[in-house]
């Protein structure tokens, strides 16, 4: 007998709005061929509506938690979760998307008629990832992951004339599909071992029964981590990242990397910390190993790059390691804080890269940033704050984020990992400083860079967020403290 799942449109309304927004962008384009600005308003509108609905869901969810009515936090017969974790993840994705679209404005405009495709793909990618952070079912999670990833592959290669972008897109696609296959194999093994597909079901099963063949489950966990590790570019699964960051259109890389990290780590933390947490003793050392490898490899390799985009890619690997440290700390709020703070810094940093590349060349080579403080104080100043934020200097959100995950890891008994992590952050200082040195301490008399208003807005938001969350950490920490998974 097949049971029809109960349907509650409200739970997935934000995702529906985004998907409809994507369709609307395409249809409006086909019907009226408007200027890109109109399409951007349609896309922006759907993001705003989705965000508004998510905020309402947040309020409803906290009421439900306060009333002890945990049942109302699941929908579609437990396929979809509406807990604080999912809702915060969605909000983080939407914020990154909104900033990403604004930062990539020039990119969409330059695409001409294909700009509509770009905007639609962005909305679809966010829809997929949004489903992913909210899903309780591993197959459902896989669907979300694929919807999001495939949209990103296409986005990476959207500028068909650019051979570098083509290469990046193909690489991203091949590696990414491979990772997805590994992930779904891991899900299959989990099912084989437990007959459970839902995350909550797995959690109950594993804490309620003694598993006769833990080996299958452990292998399943391993494959899932490997698959998602690809998506978040954790070492040693990071090899695609530098090429993709370098080749994909600058305007959109920040968004792509940001949402992939948020969704990937949300899935990793949800699966590892709520579904299979009874195996923590077995898999945490391995996660710690990935964390160490990512932090050290990412920081050291970033140090030797002469290309800002590759540098940011390797710094992304290092950040994956730092967030993995938070996973080892088994506390989701530290991870969520880190994800949002980092994603926003990343989008902002790539907005600067895009603006620099808009005036001259690819915006990649370190030498293009020479004397940027003269040519555009706004760009240089914002990038400095964002880089210092990524480096984790105090008074930025990056410091609070790092402090949070380090403290969690220490409190969970991984003192050595924290020591490795603080040393890796020092290595990381060195390459963030290199960019700042080039911008401020070397002079260059080339032309001033005109910064469009929308980019100024994005940078302003990113810088303010970085500083405010750094100086008044409670402004975000109080929020993530409520964003607990069921």
């Amino acid at each position, binding site marked *: 007998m097949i049971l029809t799942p109960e349907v509650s449109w409200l739970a997935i309304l934000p995702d529906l709005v985004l998907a409809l927004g994507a369709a609307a962008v395409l249809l409006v384009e086909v019907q009226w061929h408007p200027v890109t600005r109109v399409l951007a308003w349609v896309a922006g509108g759907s993001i705003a509506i989705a965000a508004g609905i998510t905020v309402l869901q947040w309020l409803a969810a906290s009421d439900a938690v306060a009333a002890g009515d945990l049942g109302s936090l699941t929908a579609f017969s437990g396929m979809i979760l509406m807990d604080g974790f999912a809702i915060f993840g969605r909000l983080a994705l939407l914020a990154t998307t909104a900033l990403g679209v604004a930062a990539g404005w020039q990119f969409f405009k330059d695409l001409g008629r294909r700009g509509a495709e770009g905007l639609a793909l962005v909305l679809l990618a966010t829809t997929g990832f949004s489903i992913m952070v909210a899903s309780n079912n591993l197959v459902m999670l896989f669907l979300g992951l694929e919807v999001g990833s495939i949209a990103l592959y296409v986005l990476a290669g959207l500028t068909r004339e650019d051979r570098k972008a083509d290469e990046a897109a193909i690489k991203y696609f091949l590696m990414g599909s491979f990772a997805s296959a590994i992930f779904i194999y891991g899900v299959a093994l989990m099912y084989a071992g437990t007959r459970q597909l839902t995350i909550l079901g797995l959690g109950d099963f594993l804490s309620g029964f003694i598993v006769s063949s833990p080996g299958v489950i452990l292998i399943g966990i391993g494959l899932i981590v490997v698959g998602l590790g690809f998506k978040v570019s954790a070492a040693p699964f990071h090899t695609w990242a530098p090429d993709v960051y370098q080749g994909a259109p600058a305007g959109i890389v920040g968004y792509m990397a940001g949402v992939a990290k948020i969704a990937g780590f949300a899935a990793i933390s949800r699966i590892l910390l709520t579904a299979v947490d009874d195996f923590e003793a077995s898999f945490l050392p391995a996660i710690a190993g990935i964390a160490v490898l990512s932090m050290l490899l990412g920081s050291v390799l970033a140090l030797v790059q002469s290309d800002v985009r590759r540098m940011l890619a390797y710094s992304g690997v290092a950040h994956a390691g730092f967030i993995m440290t938070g996973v080892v700390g088994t506390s989701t709020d530290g991870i969520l804080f880190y994800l949002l703070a980092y994603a926003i810094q990343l989008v902002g940093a790539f907005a600067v890269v895009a603006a620099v590349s808009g005036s001259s060349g690819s915006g990649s080579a370190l030498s293009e940033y020479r004397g940027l403080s003269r040519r555009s104080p706004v760009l240089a100043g914002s990038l400095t704050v964002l880089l210092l934020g990524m480096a984790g*200097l*105090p008074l930025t959100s990056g410091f609070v984020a790092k402090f949070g995950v380090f*403290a969690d890891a220490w409190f969970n008994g991984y003192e050595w990992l*924290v*020591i490795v992590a*603080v040393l890796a952050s*020092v290595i990381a200082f060195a390459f963030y400083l290199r960019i700042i*040195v080039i911008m401020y*301490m070397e002079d260059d008399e080339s032309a001033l860079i005109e910064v469009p208003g929308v980019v100024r807005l994005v940078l302003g938001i990113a810088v303010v967020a970085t500083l405010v969350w750094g100086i008044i950490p*409670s402004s975000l920490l109080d929020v993530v403290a409520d964003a607990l998974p069921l």
Partner: protein
Amino acid sequence: MLTALVLLPVAAAVVVALIPSRRRELHLPVGIALSVLPLALAGYLFWAFQAEAGYQFAVDAVWYEPWGISWSLGVDGISLPLVLLTALLVPIALGASTAISKRTKEFVVYTLLLEAGMIGAFLALDLFLFFVFFEAILIPMYFIIGIWGGERRIYASVKFFIYTALGSALMLAAIIGLAFNYSEQFGTLSFALEDLMQVTLSGGTERWFFAAFALAFAIKVPLFPLHTWLPDAHVEAPTAGSVLLAGVLLKLGTYGLLRFNLSLFPEASVDAVPIMGVLAVIGIIYGALVAIVQPDLKKLVAYSSVSHLGFIVLGTFALTSGGLQGAVIQNVNHGLTTGALFLLVGMIYERRHTKEISEFGGLQKVMPVFAGFFLFMTFASIGLPGLNGFVGEFLVLVGSYATLPVLAIIAAFGVVLAAIYLLWAYERVFTGIPDKEENRVLLDLSPREIGLLAPLAALVLVLGLYPSVLLDKIAPSTESVLDHIESTTDYVTPEPGRLDDVYVAEEGDS
């Protein structure tokens, strides 16, 4: 009020930043004028400060409750002189920066932010807050060296940044570890110094934490063999940067050792006395020997810093009343005299665009006022009785003789060596006949430059003749540090090590 003291420089920086770039002639004067406000406030603080142990004017506001971090400031006899020194040196350093021709506005803003960070670090009573200030200081200093420095400024600034960041990174790990131990023992999280002092640590853990803190501060001091960043940073930094670096930034290291290492890890501190003492003495002798052979005047002063700061560390780890008081007052002395020496080197550099000692000669005849100030500061730095350096070094040597007699005797040779390298440098630069054409036409100090040096010279004299104006306020606090060590460990200060004995000795000598 302490909050105001930290935020005033920030407000001043904002004001300067808001002055439009086309009014560039205004940036420096406004910056100087505004930087006098914190000085006035610090002066009031000094006047209102009661000579008692414990923190005064304490401010405690919750920053983020679940983490147990708070905006917690307070001043005691150990931090008071340093706060005053910072507030004094910033206007002077800015006043000495008229030669800064490019990007004046940014320079003034960074200097004022640096001041806020330094004062904050001296006042912070919460380890999280302290760490925030401690790290935040790096950024403005990094820019000051990197933008307005000499030829190898980028190398020097990055080296400075990485060295200090490396030290503080491990300290961060230790801070987290301390808070973890506190939460295990007391059930809540807290980063307050007072709370963390109550944590009982196992011997091994305490040593590790001590080492992590000591590394951070030893790099900052800098203690041999971690000093290699200092000459580079000093030589490349602009005059104001050198003055603040030597005058205040290095004091964060000695202050940190005294405030945090001794109080948080008393057992490990007592165990570490021989190591720290030996390193300090190596620094004293090594710094002095290297200073002797320096052909560059600024490098000479930089290495003399390594030597002088060795005295402060030696005094701190002597764990006697005299040693601790000497360490605190020597912090101030070194800030005044070395700050002044860097100013003087900067002034001659602005005129001759060289710092090579061999380029000078016979300046006494051309620039008598300059030579007079230089000689005065040289004597103060050597420790001539009647000037401030004597008081500090004497207290340190007497204090450390009680516990580390051999090291104290060796360290005393550092005083002799200081006389050699400073007086020899003076001889080569100032005496004889001015045989180089360029040297004959040099202008003597302008009234502005005299105005910058005069307050420093006056303080050198006051502290030399009447040190108790400062010592009386310092003593209760350093005594309470010793009390804390004696009450938490089985360490007993050997006779004559505590306050009364030292005072008797001092009076008997003078």
